[in-house]
């Protein structure tokens, strides 16, 4: 991961309301040409010049795979996404990932691009409540699903219990992985409540009796934190789970009696 790759550059940020984002996106293409895009184009141009010699030096004669050549671009098509309870009418090429659709087309910069290859979890969002890596899926495949990003976790201006716990427990340093950690942890609590097991559960045939720190660590292992805030992330998740369990028991039949 290069520094450029993980940092949100000011000139890359498009400040729009969701409504204007839809309008802007409906007219086509990404909202603006960023410095990052320019650098990528420049690098690609340089590679084109260098590539033939490299191939000549290192590549023995080999049959080419039998497949038609890829076109340079495919036509954009209308793709409607439900994100955080709002509808976004976008024009997307099929190859646009859900992550790029969120950031570059819907203007929702909360979801972060870390590795872009499913290895870090920074891009974690919820699709119909299930946590997924938005970098390894195509936006066009998610029409009709309810997508929740970090921007959608707060309700009516109030932070979610996990968001408050992350602040209280100092569960981040630079904050880059935090949107993914929050989405992931939100789903984790629901998964545990639904009775799912993990690879550290003592017996997959039974529901784990408690959400131990080992269970939290394993269930959060898809979210890397280069600052190493893991201990505090575990503490934040544990705290919210503990208070939710306590509330549930208070609200139960005994609590009502």
């Amino acid at each position: 991961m290069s520094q450029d790759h993980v940092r949100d550059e000011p000139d890359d940020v498009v400040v729009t309301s969701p409504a204007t984002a839809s309008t802007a996106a409906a007219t086509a293409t990404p909202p603006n040409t960023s410095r990052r895009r320019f650098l990528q184009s420049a690098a690609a141009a340089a590679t084109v010049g260098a590539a033939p010699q490299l191939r000549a030096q290192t590549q023995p004669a080999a049959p080419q795979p039998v497949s038609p050549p890829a076109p340079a671009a495919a036509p954009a098509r209308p793709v409607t996404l439900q994100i955080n309870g709002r509808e976004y009418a976008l024009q997307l090429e099929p190859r646009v990932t859900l992550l790029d659709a969120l950031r570059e087309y819907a203007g929702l910069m909360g979801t972060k691009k870390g590795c872009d290859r499913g290895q870090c979890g920074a891009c974690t969002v919820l699709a119909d409540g299930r946590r997924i890596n938005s970098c390894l899926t195509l936006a066009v495949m998610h029409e009709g699903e309810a997508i929740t990003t970090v921007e959608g976790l707060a309700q009516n201006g109030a932070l979610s219990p996990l968001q408050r716990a992350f602040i209280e427990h100092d569960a981040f340093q630079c904050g880059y992985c935090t949107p993914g950690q929050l989405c992931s942890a939100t789903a984790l609590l629901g998964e545990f409540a639904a009775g799912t097991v993990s690879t550290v559960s003592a017996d997959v045939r039974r529901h784990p009796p408690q959400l131990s720190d080992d269970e939290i660590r394993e269930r959060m292992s898809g979210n890397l934190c280069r600052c190493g805030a893991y201990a505090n992330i575990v503490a934040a998740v544990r705290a919210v789970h503990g208070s939710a369990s306590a509330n549930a028991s208070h609200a139960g039949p005994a609590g009502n009696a």
Partner: protein
Amino acid sequence: MDAISYERAADLTGAVRSGQQPGASFIGGGTNLLDLMKGGVSRPVKLIDITHVGGELDAIATLPDGGLRVGALVRNSDAANHALVRERYPLLSQALLAGASAQLRNMATVGGNLMQRTRCSYFYDTAFAQCNKRQPGSGCAAREGFSRTHAIFGASPQCIAVNPSDMSVGLAALDAVVRVTGPNGERSIPIGEFHRLPGERPDLDTTLQFGELITAVDLPPPLYSDHAHYVKVRDRASYAFALVSVAAALQMDGHTVKSARIALGGVAHKPWRAQAAEQMLAGHPLTDTNVKNAAAAALRDAQPQRDNRFKIELAQRAIVRAVNQAAGMPGGVA
């Protein structure tokens, strides 16, 4: 990523028809395919989205013989947590949960897991021109490279890559059958014949024919629900591919092993059944000596690469642990 066209298949017939177009590839969860496309390793020109074909591809259902049919589009997390899988095939649950992360398991399908390609870094990195799997006839950079994660069984001079799937190792121990459909109709492929050894054609991972689509995985009636265990040894505690993994399933009669199934992951181009060890265990009391001897027999014919001799000892210890755990702690972990 190259530009692609996209088509959402409405049903199985449509998916099979569309899959025969030149340069077409099926996409399910996409967790491996899109990764490979971003790296320029796979270059389909058209993706056929099969996630909406529905029907039995999305279902888990019991079979008349007492077995279980797991649809190809069932997500790894759903398969691992399905009540019948957890109760009757805890080995499959454990194998699935040992792989990837919660997010990826929510996306990845059972059929897609079977189609996972190797994580050999020389295959993945197109800066290395030599890779017979990526470019037939170009050579094998791994043979002269860092071979720590590579095969100790069944490799060929053309390829020393290993299959990365945990699920497939569990399926191999359970004698699963892969059901496919294609231009020439339906057929069933025993899991042991589904993945290939590299031989002269390392570009082919499986015995699937052109245009064929996996529809389900059939599990035979459960014989190993009470005594099964999956051990995965990796460089970090979670979210990493196996250096070595072992799926062990036993039928016990008191302290005696009635029958045993042992499959190894991370050691070959396909899940590797340790039949010599299975035969040595069957019909004998489960003693430390018997288990150790069986583990030694399982690795007797191993042929390590320059950097992975450690896998021979590691695999033997993992077999001992998996078998002992299977015998003593039903459904438990190491």
